[in-house]
């Protein structure tokens, strides 16, 4: 909604907003810039901003050392799989909480959130032993399930808040017209909830992509995603800023690009019921 403000005020606001935005973005920008420098340029004093010889050498070195595509593929499968599975489990649950609430609905929601508070490292041994028993170590399937369970409370909650915003009268009307439960969900609710579901998917994809404890500790060679990829660059010998930057850029680029393309969806969708 366009509100009338003086051009002077608008210019001032613009300058301020851009300054803060660039400041917040700067660490990422700096990492990307550094990834195109040589190791010596990366630590040059005073620091070089754009006046250096741009090189792709670091990317070549990183790619030669570790097969980026394999890690990327695992990240996509694990983050995508766990999000998809989570949505399948969460939609019915959130639907029933939102439209057929009981006295205990809120308690159940809060209980679900509380399962996220178990410190992961405290249960590493139990889960590791369980995974050995089930043969799930270093498998994408195992990680898909674990990450789904970790994020499920957030998914349920987000969907619940979206569903609650759908006015009850519409459902009443649909029921009057003789729609069954299936039709009601399929033709009435789902279309209205699509934006909410989309942003839920986005948020969970991001959370699953960035999860670094289980993905690191439950994988070896086959299922290791980008979080494991970055763990081999964190403190190598000698000068490493440029290579670290290249590896970091490679690890965050896919999700950053996805995030940028879908930022409208995220901005609209991340309400958690915050809007009355």
């Amino acid at each position, binding site marked *: 909604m*366009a509100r009338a*403000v003086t051009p002077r005020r*608008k210019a001032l606001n613009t300058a301020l*907003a851009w300054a803060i*935005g660039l400041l*917040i*973005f700067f*660490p*990422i920008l*700096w990492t990307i810039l550094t990834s195109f420098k040589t190791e010596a340029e990366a630590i040059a*004093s*005073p*620091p070089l901003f754009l006046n250096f010889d741009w090189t792709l050498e670091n990317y070549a070195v990183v790619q030669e050392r570790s097969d980026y595509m394999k890690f990327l593929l695992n990240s996509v499968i694990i983050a995508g799989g766990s999000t998809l599975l989570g949505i399948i*489990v*969460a939609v*019915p*649950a959130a639907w*029933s909480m939102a*439209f*057929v609430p009981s006295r205990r609905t809120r308690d*159940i929601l*809060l209980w*679900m*959130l*509380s399962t*996220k*508070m*178990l*410190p992961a*490292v405290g*249960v*590493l*041994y*139990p889960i590791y*032993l*369980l995974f050995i028993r089930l043969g799930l170590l270093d498998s994408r399937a195992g990680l898909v399930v674990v990450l789904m*369970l970790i994020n499920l409370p957030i998914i349920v909650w987000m969907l619940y808040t979206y569903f609650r915003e759908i006015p009850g009268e519409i459902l009443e009307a649909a029921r009057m017209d003789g729609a069954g439960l299936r039709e009601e969900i399929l033709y009435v609710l789902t279309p209205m909830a699509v934006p909410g579901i989309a942003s839920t998917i986005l948020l969970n994809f*991001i959370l699953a992509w*960035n999860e670094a*404890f289980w993905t690191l500790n439950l994988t070896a060679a086959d299922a290791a995603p980008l*979080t494991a990829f*970055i*763990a081999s660059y*964190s403190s190598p010998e000698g000068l490493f800023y440029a290579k*670290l*930057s290249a590896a*970091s850029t490679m690890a*965050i680029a896919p999700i*950053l690009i*996805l*995030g940028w393309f879908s*930022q409208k969806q*995220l*901005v609209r969708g*991340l*309400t*958690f*019921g*915050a*809007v009355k």
Partner: protein
Amino acid sequence: MATRHFRSTARLMMAPAVILLLGWMLVPLTMTLWFSFRRYLPLRGGDLGWAGFDNYVRFVTSGAFWPSVQTTLIIVGGVLVITVALGVVLALLLDQPIWGQGAVRILVIAPFFVMPTVSALVWKNMFMDPVNGLFAHLWRFFGAEPVAWLSDVPLASIVVIVSWQWLPFATLILLTAVQSLDREQLEAAEMDGASPLARFGFIVLPHLSRAITIVVLIQTIFLLSIFAEIFVTTGGAFGTRTLTYLIYQRVLESQNVGLGSAGGVYAIILANIVAIFLMRIVGKNLDR
């Protein structure tokens, strides 16, 4: 429509989520409880028998316990204060008509997409390093002695790193709330001569209270278990050992699973105390 049938179908639809989460909670919890009463030392051959409450007593009486609880609360509290305060400011600013609004929004939310490990590595090496870091260059440029951030002001440094990661999340949620603000009410207040501060205090802030509650709740859940940021930057040195990190040290560095499990049980208790506290203080906001 048979309401009873309808209700039971609804319960059935909730079942998969509830059962899965119940399993995810109970199986590890039971195993943690079991281990916490055992002398379980993997490097000494595994399960060495019943330990009674030894692990529980040892974990709390260790000199590291209370400082770690304190550190946890400082980090969580510090990050919450910074992200909520800056988030409100940013949300109000981004709500104003400006040129390139979309682009600025992209810049502001970008840190949210960065893996915690990567963000900790970048901040530690490329910004906070006292010799080659960008801050050191900046300090020297102004003729000041560079600061060794991660050893001189370690807690504040970690709070800054974590706040940077979570500011986008807070801003996004607060922004959606700001956008639903009643403009007419604001304008009416302005006509009546209410100062900007008064308008903010009496109209904007109450309107945002629900969004702030949600930011606080969700961030707390995530912040109580931050690990990568500490592991990468200080390794728990200089008083940055949180309860989660202390448990990590017990389980993986000292290889004392029994003691670590007892710590895990304490962490769950602490988390629930914090959660109940949050619900009592701000939970009312969640019910409309």
